[in-house]
């Protein structure tokens, strides 16, 4: 079974703090994604990475950066947290290539509920 883990389930930070959200997957997947989920807005893509040290902006990258130094780990960084970044953050991964019948199925971690006060 694919396992995607996220470093914290709940996090409370103050405005202006630098915040690191960590995601680790154990299936040697090439592609990893960071989303945020907000009520009424669905899942919105922040950044994704298709290989080590590679990153691409998603739909809402402003205020965020990412790091992928190892294949299994993808970090989301809030350089200076703001209250409008209070949200549920979800990490996902998927292998590249035609590896299974459901080859476009992304596997999600449990999420980190971040509150910025």
């Amino acid at each position, binding site marked *: 079974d694919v396992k995607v883990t996220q470093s914290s389930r709940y996090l409370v930070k103050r405005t202006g703090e630098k915040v690191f959200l960590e995601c680790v997957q154990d299936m040697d997947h090439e*592609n990893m994604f960071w989303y945020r989920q907000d009520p009424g807005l*669905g899942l919105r*893509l922040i950044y*994704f990475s298709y290989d080590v040290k590679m990153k691409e902006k998603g739909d809402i990258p402003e205020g965020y950066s990412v790091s992928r130094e190892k294949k299994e780990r993808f970090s989301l960084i809030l350089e200076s947290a703001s209250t409008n970044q209070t949200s549920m953050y979800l990490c996902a991964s998927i292998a590249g290539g035609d590896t299974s019948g459901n080859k*476009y199925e992304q596997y999600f*971690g449990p*999420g980190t509920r971040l509150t910025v006060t």
Partner: protein
Amino acid sequence: DQQVKQNSPSLSVQEGRISILNCDYTNSMFDYFLWYKKYPAEGPTFLISISSIKDKNEDGRFTVFLNKSAKHLSLHIVPSQPGDSAVYFCAATRTGAGSYQLTFGKGTKLSVIP
């Protein structure tokens, strides 16, 4: 511009009846579609998918129908159970483009009433 639309934010259904969740898309390049289910405080879990070469895919109580000409898909759950109460997200992608990016709808919250 929203490329995947779920126009019903919520749906209530009696236990044992059919639940029908709808999804529309605007990008004609999308050719693979997925449904995810999400409980509160958990990550989404994959439910069922369909390729554009098919018009129906069935897995137990879950069936997805695709109408390409209308750019519309629907998820049928029969019979509905209280444990099906969750938020359901429709997602779409373009295969063969070298990207595994999914575009998600805003979700429909399904409540199954015992």
